[in-house]
């Protein structure tokens, strides 16, 4: 009793939950990457570092200024967003119109510098960050015990992803963004300040990564390399979903997270490569990604 395909159900549910948690971070991060790539045509390798910066901002706000988790959820993305705006204005914007490889190299370099600096200051080991007292403990769902903080992360990430999707699909700003993704010159010829739109988009994408970083701090610990461990998987998620597809990034993020969790139950040896195997298959069968538009 209480087994499915010979697997004890608590272990199965536990891995599905872990998959959903990981998937939440895949979705939030690949969403920002997809938005930035769609409009700026920049493959933002600094995305993992911006996620790490968000977690560290929360950690430093707490330890230096006594700022609590809830305030950090707002403040950390704001700080990282402003840093990203400065990066876009002073560096990235000079690279528009040249080969996208330059943007990739610049953001990759920035990621190395940021991660190196934080490793120098704080060491490679993770710093603990306690979940807020309101979200500690666990709740009995009947079929399993779920830590409240993990449930909160899944719900918060869903709200963030759906909110971002609505912003892009249903608002005027989102219409500018979608149109500029197709033909930025024409949108600017209609009188929209496209350079400003690019700056804001990069800032928003980085702020999303930082928000994910704050949410991740109590789960994964705050460490300089937390982003680079994640970013390669997130790139695979973006490729599977389809470069530039918002909905693709969100759906693929959650689905691949859960698939990865299930692999840990049924065939643990493959769990660290399953996402890349799926990516390879998708690239062979549907090179534009599951939700991408063939060009």
């Amino acid at each position, binding site marked *: 009793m209480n087994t499915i395909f010979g697997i004890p159900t608590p272990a199965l549910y536990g891995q599905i939950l872990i998959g959903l948690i990981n998937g939440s971070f895949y979705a939030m991060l690949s969403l920002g990457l997809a938005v930035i790539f769609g409009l700026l045509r920049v493959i933002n390798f600094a995305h993992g570092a911006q996620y790490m910066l968000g977690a560290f901002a929360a950690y430093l706000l707490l330890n230096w200024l006594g700022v609590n988790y809830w305030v950090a959820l707002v403040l950390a993305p704001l700080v990282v967003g402003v840093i990203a705006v400065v990066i876009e204005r002073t560096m990235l914007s000079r690279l528009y119109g040249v080969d996208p490889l330059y943007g990739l190299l610049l953001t990759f370099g920035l990621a190395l510098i940021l991660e190196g600096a934080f490793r120098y200051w704080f060491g490679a080991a993770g710093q603990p960050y306690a979940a807020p007292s309101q979200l500690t403990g666990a709740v009995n769902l009947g079929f399993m015990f779920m830590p409240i903080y993990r449930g909160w992360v899944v719900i918060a990430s869903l709200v963030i992803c759906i909110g971002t999707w609505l912003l892009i699909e249903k608002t*005027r700003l989102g219409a500018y963004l*979608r149109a500029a993704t197709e033909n930025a010159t*024409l949108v600017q*010829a209609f009188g929209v300040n496209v*350079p400003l739109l690019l700056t804001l988009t990069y800032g928003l994408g980085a702020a999303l990564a930082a928000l994910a970083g704050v949410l991740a701090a109590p789960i994964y610990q705050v460490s300089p390399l937390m982003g680079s461990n994640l970013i390669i998987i997130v790139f695979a998620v973006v490729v599977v979903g389809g470069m530039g597809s918002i909905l693709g990034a969100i759906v693929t993020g959650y689905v691949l997270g859960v698939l990865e969790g299930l692999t840990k139950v049924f065939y643990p040896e493959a769990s660290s490569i399953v996402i890349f195997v799926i990516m390879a298959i998708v690239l062979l069968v549907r090179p534009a990604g599951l939700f991408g538009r063939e060009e």
Partner: protein
Amino acid sequence: MSSAPLLEVRGLNAWYGESHVLHGVDLDIREGETVTLLGRNGAGKTTTLRAIMGILRRREGVIRLRGKDLLSLPLHKVAQAGIGYVPEERGIFASLNVSENLTLPPTVSEGGMSVEEIYTLFPNLHERRSSQGTKLSGGEQQMLAIARVLRTGAKVILLDEPTEGLAPVIIQRIGDVLVALKKRGMTILLVEQNFRFAKKVADRFYLMEDGRMVNSFPGHELDARMDELHEVLGV
């Protein structure tokens, strides 16, 4: 008639990369006028529109709207100064529906048409307002591209080959729309290969060849100049 032109172009030179494509183009459009650029393919008509709009950035010379310099403005400020652009390829966005396409360009001044007025002028667009923009027929896409700049309150519309590839009945319909716009006092710079269409709406013609203005004449002289035009245009 006011003495100063609404849109004034003097000695306009432009380059695509290293290639010098406009050679000292002069052009005047007075308020409420419809002016048509004629010329062979490659004569520089579309390039002239793109240079005025600022999409083509490498330019020298003078471009003024109501005496205000446009040449030094960044691209988005040109539209804000009051110029509406209807590109040759129409530029309907696939990721936007018809209504989003219509309301995309920001309002630049008072006096543009309301969405209701536009839907009265283009009933098909109203019927298909929730369709994806690029699912429309060619004629409907052209009407959407024109309708899009009527909302913004632009003073001058640059209209690039609106009849290209369309059926005669649709061309007729677009002609009616331009006549209606003229009646409202709209100023239009039109690039057109279709004489019969252009004759119906144009007050004046400019003739372009190899990136230069070679002639200009009032609309009523078109018939008398047909032989000369056929020679230059090779039609």
